[in-house]
């Protein structure tokens, strides 16, 4: 694996919606965050904890009130070293919640091609980018020429994500990619995301409410509450800190809670189990099996 490089760094970033209006609403307070190359990061937390706002800052959809965001990605900054918004948009691919709502073209191909064309690519390059993105998302070549609105919700979501991937971003940011999908599609998605990192050396930032997937996929987890990052670390660190998870009512992994309760009764755990299998293995170790 290559040396980890910082791609985006946020320092002490704060953000307020509708600044100066009666509807003013502070969304982020002093957030520090670093995104490294080929790393999967998950943001978890309540609705309204600032996850979606943070995600939009990464893509320069919003500008922070204070603090700074730096993009250490080639070609994003102009000669003076300042980030160019349009280039940030293509280098940091942002997929919104329910991305299927953004599909508008007559065929799937056209829709995926929208991004690359906007970047000024010629038809050959566009075609290459579209096919590559479709393949990465596991889309059949046949459906590329279908009208998007005949597709199922899950497939349409893949189309929408392919539309972002076709812009060849270095970082992919997904706002609740699994919302409203059935368990099977969720599993499929999890595999796809791991595949994307493998094939493209892509960093992935996602917002998720599903702690199991967060634990299984992420290299690092950030828990947010009230616009602040309250807990961060690798999945084991985060989910073993049950007191803090409880304090901010973020939720627990069942296996981690069981492990804590059992260790109070004399069963030893070498590491916090994140899945049922790990839990079983750890318990069996105590019995010498």
């Amino acid at each position: 694996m290559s040396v980890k490089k910082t791609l985006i760094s946020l320092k002490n970033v704060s953000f307020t919606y509708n600044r100066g209006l009666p509807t003013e609403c502070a969304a982020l307070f002093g957030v520090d965050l670093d995104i490294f190359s080929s790393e999967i990061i998950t943001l978890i937390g309540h609705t309204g904890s600032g996850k979606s706002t943070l995600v939009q800052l990464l893509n320069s959809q919003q500008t922070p009130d204070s603090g700074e965001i730096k993009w250490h990605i080639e070609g994003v900054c102009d000669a003076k070293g300042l980030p160019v918004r349009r280039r940030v948009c293509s280098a940091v691919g942002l997929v919104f919640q329910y991305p299927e709502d953004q599909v508008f073209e007559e065929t799937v191909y056209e829709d995926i091609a929208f991004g690359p064309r906007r970047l000024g690519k010629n038809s050959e390059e566009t075609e290459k980018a579209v096919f590559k993105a479709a393949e990465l998302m596991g889309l059949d070549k046949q459906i590329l020429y279908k009208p998007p609105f005949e597709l199922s919700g899950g497939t349409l979501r893949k189309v929408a994500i392919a539309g972002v991937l076709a812009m060849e971003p270095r970082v992919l940011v997904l706002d609740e990619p699994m919302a409203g999908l059935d368990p099977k599609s969720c599993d499929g998605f999890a595999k796809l995301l791991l595949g994307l990192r493998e094939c493209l050396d892509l960093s992935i930032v996602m917002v998720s409410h599903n702690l199991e997937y967060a634990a299984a996929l992420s290299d690092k987890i950030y828990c947010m509450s009230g616009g602040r990052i309250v807990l961060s670390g690798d999945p084991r660190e985060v989910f073993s800190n049950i007191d803090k998870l409880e304090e901010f009512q973020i939720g627990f992994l069942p296996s981690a809670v069981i492990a804590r309760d059992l260790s109070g009764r004399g069963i030893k755990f070498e590491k916090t189990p994140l899945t049922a299998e790990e839990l079983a293995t750890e318990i069996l170790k105590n019995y010498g099996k």
Partner: protein
Amino acid sequence: MVNDIILGQYMPTGSFIHKASPKLKIISLFLFTFSLFLIKDSYLYFYFLAVAFIILKLARLRASYLLRGLKPLIFIFVFTFVLNIMFSEGDKLLWEWGIIKITEEGLLYSFKFFMKVTLLVIYATLLTLTTSPVELSDGIEDCLRPLKLVKFPVHEFSLMMTIALRFIPTLVMEIDKIKRAQEARGANFSEGSLTERAKNFVPILIPLFITSFKRADELAIAMESRCYMGGEGRTRFRRKKDGAADYLMFIAVLAAVFPALVNFLASL
């Protein structure tokens, strides 16, 4: 941008004007509108401006709310005002340049027209500022009730209005969301020629239509599953009888528009 679109959004302050019968408020708006078209002397425009200001104060609203409603229309107002001044006919010539003639009559006419339109918007905004959308559609239903005699679907009509009003903010939010999503895919809404910019709205409009149709479908199913059967035999949740206070307010309105009628009759 989003906040400017909604002209005179409901501002609850709990004043007696807010609580007054929406039906009578709508009829009052019509009375004021008619009066504005009846009056001949310009000083009465200032009288109606003063009346509007008194209503504003009684409703415990700030003048800035009114101005915010007028802001998007300023350009149209000024444009028609200038055009009227330049191209209306008259005898007393004040200034001439090519085909452009400014006459005293033209000046007066433009002023009257300008005041008329501004006051119309002000009174209409006063109604929407003090009446919630639901009350408004209840009021319209009440006003249209006589049309039932000629088989006009009054209830369905007012339901359509309620739903349309209810979904304006939702659509505004939806547009914002889709716009962001397309921007993340490289769309650009602030650059390019006029035709290019118009074309750029396709990626917003199509998803907007699709989600709107979907939403309409879901709404219809939700209503049917709660046994909505149309207006036949349907009773109301909010039942409000007009009381003495409502009639008093209406009499005050009649008194307020009286000068307009006198002015009109005197000019005949």
